[in-house]
């Protein structure tokens, strides 16, 4: 019984090293062979069968070099162009928001509308990213995470260099914190997804990305806007009370304090007056980053061959 369990554990380890689309069939096949060996009392051979699979190299792919180069180029194109698309989403959403705003003339819908448009377009980009990630050449959770985050950082640096923006230097610590935090989140997400725990990966990714973006906003506000005590009657001070810090990111997206006493309308104005674009960038990049990471992690190790038609299980 113990040897059988050990064999099953080894088979599970062995199966995980094969391409995701082959694992279930291979595991099922090996399990059937182990059953035959166990039933005939050949425990040692059964263990040897499982150990050999667990320690040997997984199915060496038949690498078509032209295909691999094509995939490498596609992977690079996806990873380099997607962050630019994220920046484009923020810009296009802002233009659309202005068009609608000029038509409706409702200032309170400006930020929510911008956020909604950004989120909608970001989800569309994420759906495309899922397709691109299916044949990625990136392997390993850390490589996938870095492969996604580094181009985002490069695109943000490029945008900061090309676009005239005042006070850009003040946003750098927050952006760096966001990039570093996103890398850690995506690393964990990829590790979970690679183990087949896709739902957990999505939850961790969404919550982790929110926390990281929130921390980046907090870092900016704490570093650039003074804290305060009570709101004075008459003209309010140009300060933001730290007590509502966790809500600042959401206030940037919705221009709303969720019915809570803090942040006040004036505090939200102070924050969004200085920190307008970055929260939208976080919103635009996060769906793509998560979708690409999770799909890429599920695809690894890369299976660059097209198998002959697989048998249908009886």
């Amino acid at each position, binding site marked *: 019984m113990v040897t059988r369990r050990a064999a099953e554990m080894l088979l599970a380890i*062995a199966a995980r090293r094969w391409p995701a689309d*082959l694992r279930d*069939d*291979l595991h*099922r*096949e*090996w*399990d*059937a*062979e182990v*059953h*035959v*060996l166990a*039933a005939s009392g050949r425990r040692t051979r059964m263990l*040897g*069968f*499982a150990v*050999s*699979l*667990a*320690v*040997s*190299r*997984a*199915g*060496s*792919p*038949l690498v078509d070099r032209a295909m691999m180069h094509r995939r490498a180029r596609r992977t690079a194109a996806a990873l380099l162009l997607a962050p630019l698309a994220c920046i484009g989403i923020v810009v296009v959403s802002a233009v659309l928001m202005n068009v609608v705003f000029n038509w409706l003339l409702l200032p309170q819908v400006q930020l929510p509308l911008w956020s909604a448009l950004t989120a909608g377009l970001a989800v569309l980009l994420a759906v495309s990213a899922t397709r691109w990630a299916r044949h990625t050449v990136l392997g390993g959770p850390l490589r996938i995470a870095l492969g996604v985050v580094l181009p985002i950082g490069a695109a943000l640096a490029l945008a900061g260099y090309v676009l005239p923006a005042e006070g850009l230097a003040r946003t750098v610590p927050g952006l760096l914190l966001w990039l570093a935090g996103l890398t850690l989140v995506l690393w964990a997400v990829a590790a979970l997804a690679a183990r087949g725990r896709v739902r957990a990966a999505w939850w961790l990714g969404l919550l982790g990305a929110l926390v990281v973006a929130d921390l980046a906003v907090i870092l900016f506000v704490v570093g650039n806007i003074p804290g305060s005590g009570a709101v004075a009657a008459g003209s309010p001070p140009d300060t933001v009370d730290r007590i509502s810090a966790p809500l600042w990111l959401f206030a940037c997206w919705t221009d709303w304090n969720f019915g809570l006493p803090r942040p006040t309308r004036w505090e939200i104005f102070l924050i969004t007056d200085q920190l307008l674009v970055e929260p939208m960038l976080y919103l635009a990049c996060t769906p793509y980053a998560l979708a690409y990471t999770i799909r890429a992690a599920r695809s690894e190790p890369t299976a660059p*061959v*097209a*198998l*002959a038609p*697989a*048998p*249908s*299980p*009886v």
Partner: protein
Amino acid sequence: MRITIPVAKVLAALLAEPDAERYGLDLMRMTGLPSGTLYPVLHRLRAAGWLAADWEAIDPVAAGRPARRYYRLTAEGVAEARRTLADLRAAIPDGRPSWGGAGPSEAPAW
């Protein structure tokens, strides 16, 4: 496809009876290859279209065991395997080929 000695051994074993259906354990016994070597070879042969795989048509509950997967050379696989092993034999004029098969004085199994 790159023909290694394990690949040649598997091809020779399958060509011994091209119509026979072989399970992984059968092929391990016939070739002397460990499972960790055999299954990647089977994967490569399937990917190349030389090998077909199918599941045993049994009721696992009635049989008291899970269905096993068996392998068989495709028509293309038989032709390619014969050609490949013949090329290998031609490249080794003396002695018995290291991947098994018939002796020098006998007709080759394939």
